[in-house]
């Protein structure tokens, strides 16, 4: 027996479906990982993905609760259902991880990503760029006579679509934040 006090509300990592049905098809999942805001915790998570050969499609991290010393890591990953279950279980083993939520399967959720686009050009291309930006509700955050920087928020798919349209119009550079996601409804 440990002589330590177990904190109230401390969870054992048992939030996984231990009895999933498996197929061989790759799926894309968004995982929300609540972690202790300790040095090295991001390195543990990334090291896990690198060491075990899992994919990271997108990763964001920031402190979300200063007093509670918690950060939230949002990871978009892909793999077969068996791999996804394994990723969640492996994340759950990390001592600094408090909770792993699979937003893709645990009910509806919203996903947003912010991106900055640098588009250069003059004449018709420039007019077309600003017209499309308007349709996508992207706003201009910087402008010169031959360039714009657009800011756009939306699902990753919307940003991908915007990038496709901007490419022939003089797209120079993109900076994306990666996905932030939350479950819908009142319950955390």
């Amino acid at each position, binding site marked *: 027996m*440990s*002589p*330590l*006090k*177990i*904190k109230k509300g*401390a*969870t*054992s*990592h*048992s939030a*996984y479906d*231990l*009895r*999933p049905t*498996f197929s061989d098809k790759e799926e894309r999942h968004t995982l929300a990982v609540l972690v*202790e805001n300790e*040095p*090295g915790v991001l*390195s*543990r998570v990334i*090291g896990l993905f690198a*060491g075990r050969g899992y994919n990271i499609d997108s990763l964001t991290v920031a402190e979300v609760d200063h007093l509670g010393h918690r950060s939230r890591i949002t990871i978009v990953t892909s793999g077969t259902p*068996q791999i996804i*279950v*394994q990723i969640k*279980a*492996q994340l*759950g*083993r990390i*001592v*600094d991880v*408090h909770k792993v939520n699979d937003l893709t399967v645990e009910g509806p959720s919203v996903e947003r990503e912010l991106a900055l686009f640098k588009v250069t050009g003059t004449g018709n291309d420039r007019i077309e760029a600003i017209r499309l930006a308007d349709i996508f509700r992207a706003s201009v955050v910087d402008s010169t006579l031959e360039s714009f920087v657009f800011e756009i928020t939306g699902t990753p798919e919307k940003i991908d679509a915007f990038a496709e349209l901007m490419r022939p119009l003089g797209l120079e550079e993109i900076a994306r934040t990666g996905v932030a996601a939350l479950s819908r409804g009142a319950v955390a």
Partner: protein
Amino acid sequence: MTKAMTGAKMVVQALIDQGVDTVFGYPGGAVLPIYDEIFQQNSIKHVLVRHEQGAVHAAEGYARSTGKPGVALVTSGPGATNAVTGLTDALMDSIPIVVLTGQVPTFMIGSDAFQECDTVGITRPCTKHNWLVKETDKLAPTLHEAFHIATSGRPGPVVIDIPKDVQFATGTYTEARQVETHYNPQVKGDMEMITELAAAMEKAKRPLFYTGGGVINSGPAASQLLRELIAATGFPITSTLMGLGCYPASGDNWLGMLGMHGLYEANMAMHDCDLMINIGARFDDRITGRLDAFSPGSTKAHIDIDASSINKVIKVDIPILGDVAHVLEDLLNVWKSRGRKTDKENVQKWWHQINDWKKVDCLAFKQETKVIKPQYALARLEELTKKHDRYITTEVGQHQMWAAQYLGFEDPNRWMTSGGLGTMGYGFPASIGVQMGHPDALVINVAGEASWLMNMQELGTAMQYNLPVKQFILNNERLGMVRQWQELLHGERYSSSWSESLPDFVKLAEAFGAKGIICDNPDDLDDAIMEMLHHDGPVLFDCLVEKHENCFPMIPSGKPHNEMILGENADTANAIQAGGAVMV
């Protein structure tokens, strides 16, 4: 109650409070304040090893044989990097150890200071958890939490990196009961699943228990409950290398070890069973062989404390997340309350089948010539020592597999071997750790000559602390296991698998002041073993054995269980085919 003290004193105080009696270590600049505190007390014994790898393996041996966490203390830089193999070994085999490393002072971290290395960075992937402690006030809570994390849930190694200025500075000591933690792994299994398993056991025609190191790690109660369950159901039981001793080798239901070098009857039973009950094993590749042909017709239940072990490589039908002892207790109760039912008639038939497999006598060997067969050496060692409450460690190679096959283990915590990592050089320092934990017990390291040389410097440690560890070296003058694979897989091209320029082991022993014995004749073997047992002190036993003996049975990589190679007369020419050749 809070007390002010230096960080170095906190380290010693926390170890005492955690019940630590032995620390294996090696000093250096970055841990001198801690060594100074160790010098000024008598509660904790420090064992000066001869290499930091030895300290960590010794701590592992201590932990595996006592069930208590092992502790090692090493300096920064090279001290810490030398500890990495031991840490990885402990991680793979789920051994609870706490390793304290010195670090350069906080204000020099990141400056490439003398003997600086990124210890937490280097050890992050080979520990269960690690910490760099930058404030003296946080030192005691971290130390207490470290012991909690190393020993609870799936056990494992932890590292605490302590900068020198933190050791010198004064802070407030926190006692264990004041420390909060959120780490609290689930130990009770789901009752619905447990009931489902009990129901499956009632219906099973060809049931098999497949047990592993998790039973040992769960503590003696788990082995006790397992024995009760086996006696109550009458089902057969096999175990992995790591689980040997959880059920007595002399027990009626024991089939022996399974896996790559497991017994014929155990592997055949695994292949043909209709209900497999995995208790604290992890479907390691040494066990499963070819995955798609692994026990194809069975319903699989799996009891494990680690969710990531469940469904990792083998999909199971009845997953139970929890501690082995807790789950077995509930399982026994459920099964009894449901009326202790089994399908007696079919289980009887199953035993007939198993007994037929046993008749193959897969471990038979012939000791005909004047050259000692390694199997014979171990059979004699078994015969002459089995009455002792004996602790066995091993190195890695053929001798390790023969030891697992020919030695019998009656109780848990008596068998210490490097399973997951397969670390040559593990056995000797581990035997030192075991002997420290059991000063009066008979401790034998079954070694290969090549492995033993990897940490031979620890003979100095054994002498200094008067530890009568017996080093039983099966000397085939070969990297035997490598040679065997080259014979089977690489056209008998024995590339660098000779042990060249071996020392005279008797003289080597004597150079350290230990006793050396050499034996090359089967007729002299018993007397020589008795001489080893009667000597009160470390013994180096150079047992010259047949050089080209192969270790069988063997499931060649890439093959299913029912395609085992059985013995010397087997056709090994095409044993391993292209698909299997890439596997290790």
